[in-house]
């Protein structure tokens, strides 16, 4: 069997599953879009200062990449933790493991289907930000490429971390709570909604080591300032590191069956 065909079929299967269960998954995925509309409408003329000595930018310009980060983490990490826990609990994963489908093809389907979702969401969030709030878009092809690189790497990183995190989830009932236990504090501490300047120094620098802060920073560098890949290298390096950690833990600890 052609490996590419298998992976493509799995991707299609997962996308169809998401579409069929849109009531269950779209809320997680579309929440950032709703937030964008609400917060943007409330605060459309506001400005924020980026860092203690940083420049002033429009709130919606700041907020739109924040919602992109939220969308990326929701449709990779959160949705993956929940759906893998359900499939592990009810025996779907075990049954798949009993077919000739190679595990990598299964995971390729998970990753690729989520990258498609992320791409669609990114387009929707950027288009709405542009149309409704006149948000700045990357000024050059280099900035666009940098933005796409950061967003893709972020999505891949949070996919790997989601698979790894599944090991901590005992059963499907606790999966949403445990996924949110990582997701919501990280959103807050990483400054997805508003700049976090008042944090104690140690907490601020700790939050900055987590991948969401670096994903947001990288996207803002490209979107707001039109920076190229060189400027976001520290962010890329951090994301690559987390990607490696996530992959290693996922490969070593993933379970196809629920605990006996």
């Amino acid at each position, binding site marked *: 069997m052609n490996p590419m065909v*298998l992976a493509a079929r799995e991707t299609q299967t997962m996308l169809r599953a998401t579409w*069929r269960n849109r009531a269950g998954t779209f809320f997680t995925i579309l929440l950032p879009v709703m937030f964008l509309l609400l917060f943007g409408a409330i605060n459309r003329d506001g400005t924020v200062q980026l860092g203690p000595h940083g420049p002033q930018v429009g709130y919606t310009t700041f907020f739109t990449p924040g919602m992109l980060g939220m969308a990326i983490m929701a449709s990779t990490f959160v949705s993956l933790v929940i759906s893998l826990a359900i*499939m592990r609990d009810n025996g779907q994963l075990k049954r798949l493991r009993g*077919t*000739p489908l190679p595990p990598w093809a299964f995971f390729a389907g998970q990753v690729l289907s989520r990258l498609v979702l992320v791409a669609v969401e990114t387009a929707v969030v950027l288009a709405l930000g542009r149309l409704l709030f006149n948000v700045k878009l990357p000024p050059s092809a280099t900035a666009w490429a940098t933005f796409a690189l950061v967003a893709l790497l972020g999505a891949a990183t949070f996919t790997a971390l989601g698979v790894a995190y599944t090991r901590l989830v005992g059963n499907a009932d606790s999966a949403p709570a445990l996924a949110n236990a990582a997701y919501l504090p990280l959103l807050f501490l990483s400054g997805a909604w508003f700049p976090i300047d008042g944090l104690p120094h140690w907490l601020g620098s700790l939050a900055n080591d987590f991948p969401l802060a670096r994903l947001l920073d990288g996207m803002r560098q490209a979107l707001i300032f039109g920076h190229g890949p060189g400027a976001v290298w520290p962010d890329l390096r951090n994301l690559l590191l987390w990607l490696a950690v996530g992959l290693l833990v996922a490969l070593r600890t993933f379970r196809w069956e629920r605990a006996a």
Partner: protein
Amino acid sequence: MPQTAIEARGLVMRYGDREVLHGIDLVVKQGMVLGFLGPNGAGKTTTIEILEGYRRRAAGYARVLGMDPATGGRELRERIGLVLQETAHNPDFTVRETVRRFAGYYRRPRPVDEVIAQVELQEAASRRVRALSGGQRRRLDVALALVGDPELVFLDEPTTGFDPAARRQAWRMIGGLRDLGKTILLTTHYMDEAQALADRVAIIQAGRIVAEGTPADLAAAQRVTEIRFALPAGAGPGDLPRVSGAVHDGGREVEISTEDPTGDLLALTSWAAGRGVGLDGLTVARPSLEDIYLTLTGDKEAAA
């Protein structure tokens, strides 16, 4: 020609310090249906999950279709079909989509609609898995086990929870598989199911095989005949004549397990004739597979 589909010798399994299989021997010839019986917790599922490649044995020898199941991987999975004891499928896909998805995992799948027809799910083919009845879901499990055109099929309690009509239907289907020359390892709690479907039966008890053979062999090995009748009105259990067999007192229902049915029947009927009463509901029967099973697994008293 290797005509053995499954060969296991001295399979040992441990979970931590607890040894749950103490040396299982099992041989299944190609084209044969083996009924694998035993109470819950005896080791049925552990044994077949070792053979399916889900668990690694602690010790012993195992070959499934000539491959070591612990390392057979994808090649082995191409050639076996599984109905797991508990399983699920994406509830939002239709029956046909689910079968087609699985068909895509195999090198030489069978036509999707043919497999759906074989498990008699044609009417439900466009229905979502979420909307299927328990029996229909189980038939979908069977369809997914067959779609890769396997040589060997593992059926772990395929009819648990079925109503009698659905079970008969499932038996017809499994009988059809046997007629196609598939090798089948079938675990079940229902003795009539093993009697109806299995060429040979293996009984496992507390991690050991306690009996193996054709259902007729097992019955012959028991050498006992069961005599049953209702105690006549006015007679107590103590009034019965001496018989050579063991008398199980079931209230008004008397059951005698005997190796000398002729002598015991003579004694009983003479006794009844002498008192001028009848032995209502008198039956004389070879032990059923169920009786043998209960005797071998030590549940006779509990079940009586």
